């Protein structure tokens, strides 16, 4: 009875507040999920799906600037197939992507392993390495353009003063085909390594130190611990990071546009720069769209292969 007496009795019955129709609807998880997804779907639709569909529409017509075109089927793609510069752009883009991504993976992983250790100033260092990734690309590429300038290159200046080259042997960083490709890859790697490093660092942090300790107790050396403990557990994160990097690098535009404009003699021409040159420079919007779309099947295959591999790794 004493417990009952301590219960505060209400004199007035207060029913539950009536719930509006929208509140009731949102209590259903399916509707709530859809509502929360709607802003993303709208943005994706407006800025990704619509341009993509519009691009396909342009690519199968003969549209020029200010002149609506007629349906021409795959004629634009046939023209591109026979275009020497387009074939060069395909090769350049594949080479650029494979080399740059591989180097970024190697350097990014190395940097992540170093940053995973404990040392003084670790937090500051982790923040500082992000700088190349967050500085606007065009801005940093202009700085690199100065560093590669055939007359005023600071790199040549240093090599000159170290007596490694003479004035007559000044290195033409952006004027020799293979060097120009190497230079744009260097800039891409410089910009992209922080993305790899931070992402892989996050992956490394999820690996329990006890696994390394156990392996060390069993006599595993550093390389063996990396190969049999770290690398397999890091693989899913690595594959996701590689996927994003391949997509971004394949569609790269700014670095080549600023540094070489696709030269010398189209030896650094990529899909994106060639699409811009044709679509904007000559007004042939349909051909420019066709060049952009030509990236899609290649990337789709790469993405599917990687996603299948990621799935296999996760299951394993």
């Amino acid at each position, binding site marked *: 009875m004493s417990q009952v007496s301590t219960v505060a009795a209400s004199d007035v019955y207060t029913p539950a507040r009536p719930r509006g129709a929208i509140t009731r609807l949102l209590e259903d998880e399916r509707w709530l999920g859809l509502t929360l997804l709607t802003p993303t779907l709208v943005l994706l639709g407006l800025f990704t799906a619509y341009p993509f569909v519009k691009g396909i529409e342009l690519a199968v017509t003969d549209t020029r600037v200010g002149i609506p075109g007629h349906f021409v089927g795959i004629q634009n793609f046939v023209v591109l197939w026979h275009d020497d510069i387009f074939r060069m752009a395909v090769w350049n883009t594949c080479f650029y992507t494979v080399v740059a991504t591989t180097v970024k993976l190697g350097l990014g992983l190395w940097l992540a392993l170093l940053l995973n250790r404990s040392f003084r100033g670790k937090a500051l260092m982790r923040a500082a390495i992000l700088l190349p990734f967050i500085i606007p690309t065009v801005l940093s590429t202009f700085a690199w353009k100065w560093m590669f300038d055939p007359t005023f290159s600071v790199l040549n200046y240093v090599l000159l003063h170290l007596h490694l080259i003479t004035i007559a042997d000044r290195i033409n960083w952006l004027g020799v085909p293979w060097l120009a490709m190497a230079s744009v890859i260097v800039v891409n790697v410089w910009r992209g390594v922080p993305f790899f490093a931070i992402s892989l660092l996050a992956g490394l942090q999820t690996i329990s130190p006890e696994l390394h300790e156990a392996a060390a107790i069993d006599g595993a050396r550093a390389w063996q611990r990396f190969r049999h403990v770290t690398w397999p557990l890091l693989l899913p994160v690595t594959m996701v990071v590689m996927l994003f990097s391949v997509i971004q690098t394949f569609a790269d535009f700014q670095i080549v546009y600023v540094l070489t404009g696709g030269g010398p003699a189209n030896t650094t021409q990529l899909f994106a720069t060639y699409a811009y040159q044709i679509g904007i420079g000559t007004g042939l*919007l349909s051909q420019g769209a066709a060049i952009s779309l030509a990236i899609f099947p290649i990337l789709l295959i790469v993405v599917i292969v990687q996603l299948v591999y990621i799935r296999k790794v996760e299951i394993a």
Partner: protein
Amino acid sequence: MNRLRRRDFVRLSGAAAATAGGLGAILATGRAPAYAQQTTLHWVRWSDFVPASDVLLKNQITKECQKALGINLQLETINANDIQARVTSAIQSGNGPDIILGLNNWPQLYTASLADMTDVAEEIGEQQGGYYPISKQVGMVGNKWIGVPWCIGGGLVAYRKSWFEAIGYNTFPDTWEKLQDAGKKLKAKGTPVGQALSHSFGDPPGFWYPWLWSFGGKEVEADGKTVALNSKETLESIKTAVPFWNDACDPGGLSWDDSSNNRAFLSGTIACTNNGASIYIEAKRKPDTYQTDDGKPMYLDIRHAALPKGPGGQYNLPGPFTDMVMGYSKNQDAAKTFLKWIHSKPVFEEWFTSQQGYTDGATKYWEGDKVWSADPVLAPFKNVPAQGRLTGFAGPPDRAAAEVQTKYIIIDMYAKAVQGATAEDALNWATGELKSIYGA
């Protein structure tokens, strides 16, 4: 005394106010006021290589325009490389600037989207001694003007007089063989010929198209369709270009942009370069900054000369500028009024003077302007338009010619040869590209 009713008071005071204006006047009329709507004209131009001209346009000319025409001029200057992107997005969206300054033969790419400017252009041409043929070629379709020519930019070779004299050339070499000989000697001294052979819109075509023409080479026949690049003249031009480049030129030119040669010349690392008058104008503007090795102002040692002759003649590639009034613009009448006004002699004279000889007028009237007698070093620029030829020769500078130029086919033909391809392979490649562009 008659009693003044309230209603009568308001009516009488309103009538009085109507003569004086103000709110009372408005109420008295019983109608909403019709305020004069000021027209705003949005004009997009390139960031001029002579900055003083942009300053003049944005300040003095804008104020004068407001006063004379009641038009609020909004001038926007952007990088020349970005103009085509702006034109494309404006035309496709049907919205944007009212007037856009087009370079080279860009108007020919957008003919369907430009307003008819025949009345304006013809009037200006009649008043000012007629247009140069190259202005008509880029600004007209048949008998219709699709833009109003603004001016013509031209290039001549800027060179260091004392350096050429020191190697035995008292005047600038007038043939390619002589220039190659001079360039070889200058390169041995560390100051070669500087020329861009890269993907940049201004300097590379400005040199290499005239090089091709000076050997008798051409892209197409006069019918504008038959590809004529594959000729012994063109082959000879490629074979000559390779030793010329290797012996006399700065190899850095393969990666230069349009400002690189200016910087190289002003820093004393090249002896000559084909360019507009901007190098001389800049050196003269800062005589203490740009000096010769013996401490004298560099501009005193700069002279200008035409590109050398080849077996096929002597040519240059001027850069016409044309104001395009956009078809979507709702201010076409105001744009026409504005263009007539700004091309009137007293107004255009202000801008032309600020250019100091960097450009020529689009009409022949400006050949007699005092700017050409102000500085004899700049006087040779006066003759550039009359001797000029445009891309797509011997056909018109149409869309196909623009595609060849935008894809740098002619420039890359020479670049490939210079980088090791045989002359025949380079020519075959370029011919194949031209054939696919011209639909041959």
